[in-house]
């Protein structure tokens, strides 16, 4: 019973969503929206589970004084501070327990929650995102090392695309006659991005879509049960 009820629910909801895609008439047209709403409600209850997991995992590490326990303590303190200031004075448009906190907001320029968010959290998130630039460089360096025919091809294409995206490319190939316009680096770059690149991406998207159909069908029919914590 514990196994069959989720399978029946998965079958009914899966079939309803598929049917509603092709029947715009009420009530079918609202099914997807309704199910998404239900998912949001269930998700909001599950948030508590996440918070409990976060607090217990961090407290255990701090209590056990495991390696680098200071980081876990920093995480707990950050969490506690954000929850406290959020509860006390609220956020930009929402009041907290102590109201809008106008006096503090006047000193800081914004509410404490928004202040910490903007001046502590945002720079940290931007720093993480900025790492991407350096990682792209290191990954590209490894990818462009010529080892075989494919990596050779990749490197040549990459050089064309990288050069083609700069203003230098126009100067470099401006001497090529207009009849051979495709050989101008910006044109060649556009060609590579528009045709071979788009074709490859669409092939992946089509294959992923087929995978989604197969996977969904296995789940709807109850053939695939691993996600329920079960085997065959």
């Amino acid at each position: 019973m514990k196994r069959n009820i989720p399978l029946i629910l998965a079958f009914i909801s899966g079939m309803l969503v598929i049917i509603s895609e092709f029947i715009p008439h009420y009530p079918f047209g609202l099914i997807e929206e309704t199910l998404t709403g239900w998912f949001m409600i269930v998700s909001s209850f599950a948030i508590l589970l996440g918070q409990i997991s976060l607090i217990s995992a961090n407290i255990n590490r701090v209590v056990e004084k495991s390696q680098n326990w200071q980081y876990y303590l920093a995480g707990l303190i950050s969490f506690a501070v954000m929850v406290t200031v959020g509860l006390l004075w609220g956020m930009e448009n929402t009041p907290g327990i102590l109201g809008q906190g106008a006096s503090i907001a006047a000193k800081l320029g914004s509410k404490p929650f928004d202040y910490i968010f903007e001046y502590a959290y945002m720079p940290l998130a931007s720093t993480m995102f900025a790492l991407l630039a350096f990682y792209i460089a290191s990954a590209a360096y490894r990818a462009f090392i010529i080892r075989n025919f494919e990596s050779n091809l990749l490197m040549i294409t990459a050089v064309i695309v990288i050069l083609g995206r700069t203003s230098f490319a126009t100067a470099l190939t401006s001497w090529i006659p207009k009849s051979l316009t495709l050989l101008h680096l910006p044109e060649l770059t556009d060609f590579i991005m528009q045709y071979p690149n788009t074709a490859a991406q669409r092939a992946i998207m089509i294959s992923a879509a087929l995978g989604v159909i197969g996977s969904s069908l296995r789940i709807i029919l109850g053939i695939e049960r691993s996600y329920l914590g079960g085997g065959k």
Partner: protein
Amino acid sequence: MKFVKLIAVCLLLWISVAGEAQEFEAIDFPWDNGSALLLRWKLDPSRDSLSLQKPDSLGIYREFFNEFSQSGECKDGDLVSDTQYKYRLIAYAADRTDSLVLEASAKPRQQWFAMGKLSFLILLIVICAAILYFIWSARRGKDLFIRRISGLDSMEEAIGRATEKGKPILFVPGISDLDDIQTIAALNILNHLAFKSAEYNTDLIVPCRFSMVLSAARETVKEAYLRAGKPDQYREENIFYVTDDQFGYVAGVDGIMVREQPAANFFLGAFWAESLILTETGFGTGAIQTAGTGQPHQIPFFVVSCDYTLIGEELFAASAYLSRDPHQLGSLKGHDFGKLLVILLILLGIVMEIAGLAWFKQFFVGGN
């Protein structure tokens, strides 16, 4: 003779009246959910601009469209079904003489079938029928050839390496919530991976971005350890919530990789901008890395920085492939049939377009 003249005059009058009546019409937008009307007009060449108006809540007509064409149409959306809507078309003359004012009204109606999606329905039925046929064939004992997926074959090698080194395995189930099929596919793979790691007595770390994923991942891993006959080795604290925030999550997982130094990393599920940050950090720690996603833009990053990459459909096929269950393997054969069908349709589409038969492409483009 007088009688004939009278009939002729009446006929001319009727034609002119009927002609004017057909210049502007409002009709229900076909095959939709009753939220739109289609407005069509046909003006004589003396007109050079137009104003399409509808009354607001106070009954005052307001312009909402003014792009001129001699004959054209305009879709008015976000309407309430079974409600009467009035429209007014004012057509201005090029020589600044009298303007022509035409009125029309209609009710949008809900339809029982989205005809614009007929091609999708046919394709869906054909592909689903193929998948079901191959599952049925597999059930009857037919031997089906399934091509090897090296990224999945290497899973055991990666777990073995982690066991030898006495290091844990890191599994990242993407950064999407449980309503994304890629996350479900990742959890299916996690089930197999957890079973293997239980057999090898290797720790499995699963940091989650969403509470729903955390709950499902815990249940999946717990069941796998039970199935492997080692429920005592299941450690709930190894499957934990990090944060909902994208880059906060990345920072957390990067920290785990640097501190715990897992010998094998698995990045399976939906990934966006963080994909390369995660995998390059993993590369830096020297872990053997397997990644897979359905996001085409992230696949190049994974290919460059991981040892094995599951591309597109392979992520969704992984669970069936790893289970070695003939019923599930049958569905993979159905995927291959789908690919063959798409290739044939693309080739046929090219031929039809060259032949000037645009209806074929239009049928598959669909609408609504």
